[in-house]
């Protein structure tokens, strides 16, 4: 019974992963790409917690998810700072403008 429900969680987490990957592969706006990364991260934390729930070790899964969330915040802060600096240099958020960077 619990395995059936676990597979439902995995299915939806796979859908989240697909959404993020689709965004990363097709979009051009840097902030949009970063939103894609966030969505992939949400799918991964859903997998972690649902697997812990199915194996009845929810505390361990919870501590891993909390660790992931802390790391995610640092990642977001640094990446958005990089995006602002790139915007100051290029005056554009287009990912294609990065190909002009040389040297």
């Amino acid at each position: 019974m619990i395995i059936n429900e676990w597979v439902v969680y995995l299915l939806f987490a796979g859908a989240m992963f697909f959404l993020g990957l689709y965004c990363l592969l097709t979009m051009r706006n840097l902030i949009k790409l970063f939103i894609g990364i966030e969505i992939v991260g949400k799918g991964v934390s859903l997998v972690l917690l649902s697997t812990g729930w199915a194996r009845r070790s929810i505390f361990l899964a919870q501590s891993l998810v909390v660790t992931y969330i802390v790391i995610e915040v640092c990642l977001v802060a640094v990446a958005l700072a990089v995006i602002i600096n790139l915007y100051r240099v290029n005056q554009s958020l287009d990912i294609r403008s990065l190909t002009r960077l040389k040297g």
Partner: protein
Amino acid sequence: MTFQIILLVALVAASAVAILAKDLLKSAIALAVASLILGIIFFRMGAPYAGVFEISVVAGLITVLFMLTIALTKQGGDVRESKTVKIVFPLFFIVFALIDIFVMRGILARIPALEGAAEAGTFGEVLWKERSFDLVGQLAVILAGVFAVLALFRKRDHHDN
């Protein structure tokens, strides 16, 4: 379980809106809604600490950071996306969903017994005793993040010019 499935469908729908919305501000708000729904799912799964972190930090703090960035980069924000992205999306999503269901049914057949023993203790004991080394790593990551942001926004010295 029915309510949980409704929440999961809403989670995927909010994420799809976050990706496909043309306005970046709407994308950021849809991302916050997705985090909120994920936090509620965590609560209902019996993981209140992860839910609290997800709602307060991801839905609150990260959304504010995204909005600040969008406000600071307003002039260059309207990048033209290719038009086929939105048209092809439903097709790809349906194909992926079929593959997803097929693979997950395969997993269901492969893994007969996943029952683990119930955990003893509390969340605090697991976090502070079993995973205490993770906390050192978290502190290191936070410090690295602070120094990275400081380095990225460093004011240029006069003799550099």
